[in-house]
């Protein structure tokens, strides 16, 4: 096993990269806006009455939609490990310790090992991406994530030819995650992707949002973001990534197989048995908007599902 002991000082213990980047971002924002408020980084909405991040040109993966507020993204969460109400994660995640953090990578890989988070993140180019986020419950947000493609990590890890799927697991710490004290779901939370989905350039391992480190309620310190699938696929606080041959079990599918499929691609034509998926309420808006196939990412991802009956493989 390859567990590095922390006899050296990790970069994150000095100045986390995000904070460092944040400072630069702050200088950029502050000088551009001519406002010398340190709080403008913490509360970007102070700048123009709404959050502005990131500045500058948009990348090929960014959407043009207006960003949701930092406050909304960090106080309206589904993270049952901290409680079932939307306000629970932000209220109950205070005692969760995302540092130090290790991730076990195992299964059909050439180099199974337990890695320090730094060693997973550092070799990759961290970037900002503005993604749509569609919850299976019928609401959506637009979130500026910070992270790197999962494909990057997969390349370094070198899965064997037998690897067809990737299974993910959330940390299990009932002492720090009060929601885990009751068996509302089977703990630990597990999710999975087909290997081609995991390798898709849109699939992100996020470490931050709005240019800041991820807050506990958003899945610190490492979470998945798959913008064309319902939000629950984007597993939070990942401690294990396992490469496997067969389709791995997923938590919501285990609970109600007829309501939550393995794929769970955003699809307005396949209703949740108990509610319609045709429309969604973008948080911050009054009228509902129409939901797009693959959450509007069809051009990039539909090829992966060519010939598949998406009503059957929902």
């Amino acid at each position, binding site marked *: 096993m390859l567990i590095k002991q922390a006899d050296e000082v990790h970069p994150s213990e000095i100045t986390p990269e995000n904070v460092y980047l944040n400072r630069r971002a702050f200088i950029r924002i502050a000088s551009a806006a001519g406002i010398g408020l340190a709080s403008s980084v913490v509360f970007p909405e102070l700048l123009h009455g709404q959050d502005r991040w990131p500045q500058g040109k948009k990348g090929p993966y960014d959407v043009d939609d207006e960003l949701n507020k930092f406050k909304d993204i960090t106080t309206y969460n589904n993270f*049952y490990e901290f409680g*079932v109400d939307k306000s629970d994660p932000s209220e109950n995640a205070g005692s969760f310790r995302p540092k130090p953090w290790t991730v076990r990578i195992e299964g059909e890989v050439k180099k199974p090992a337990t890695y320090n988070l730094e060693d997973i993140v550092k070799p990759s180019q961290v970037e900002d991406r503005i993604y749509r986020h569609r919850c299976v419950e019928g*609401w959506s947000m637009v979130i500026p994530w910070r992270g790197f493609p999962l494909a990057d990590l997969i390349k370094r890890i070198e899965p064997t030819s037998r690897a067809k799927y990737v299974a993910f697991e959330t940390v299990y710490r009932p002492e720090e995650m009060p929601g885990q004290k009751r068996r*509302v779901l089977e703990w630990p939370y597990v999710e999975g992707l087909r290997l081609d989905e995991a390798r898709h350039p849109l699939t992100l391992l996020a470490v931050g949002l709005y240019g800041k480190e991820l807050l506990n309620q958003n899945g610190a310190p490492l979470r998945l973001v798959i913008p064309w699938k319902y939000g629950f696929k984007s597993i939070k606080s990942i401690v294990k990534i396992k490469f496997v041959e067969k389709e791995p079990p997923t938590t919501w599918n285990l609970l109600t197989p007829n309501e939550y499929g393995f794929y769970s691609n955003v699809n307005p034509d396949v209703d949740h048995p*108990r509610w319609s998926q045709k429309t969604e*309420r973008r948080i911050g808006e009054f009228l509902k908007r129409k939901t797009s196939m693959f959450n509007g990412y069809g051009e990039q991802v539909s090829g992966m599902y060519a010939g598949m009956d998406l009503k059957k493989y929902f």
Partner: protein
Amino acid sequence: MPKTQWEIRVLKPLVFLLGLVPAGLLVWKAIAGELSANPIKDITEETGIWTLRFILCTLTITPLRRISGWALLARFRRMIGLFAFFYGSLHCVTYIYLDQFFAIDEILRDVAKRPFVTVGFAAFVMMIPLALTSSNRIAKWMGGKKWRLLHRLVYLTALGGVIHYLWLVKADTQRPVMYGGVLAVLLGYRMWEYFRSRHVTEKTIPRVKANLA
């Protein structure tokens, strides 16, 4: 009975104001920006849960009165029932206006296709005749027997409310099950009373009269 009148004069307005507190809090939170990022869902959930709470409250009056012997309680049953209808109406309007924005086709599809909406809608519709016939005059005009028979619909409304709640939650059934437990106790008490009273018929006659008061 001046004492009773005094109690009513003080307690009735008090209960009335208390009944308005949940709605007032909701309005205050909305104005102060204290609602969550999805305020429409907050309003839907708050008005819904208070409907169920008031339904259960109104069903508590009779057992409580019998057990405590405090006859005055009966005077609050109608008001609490009407509050249930008030919150139920708010809940329904929130769904039709704020949530669906009068998309009639969507609403009808929901009612037809989504069992939890069907049950909730039916539970609300069953409250309408109860609210309409709540006045003393109408009760007298209908006659006690018919009126009581009609108002047994409240049991179905309550059951519908609990099922509506149970069927809409995603994973955690703890809260709806709790409300279901309270309802089971309240209905169980009535069944127990019913079977007991069949053996002691003479005792039930004055009770029936008291019900009408």
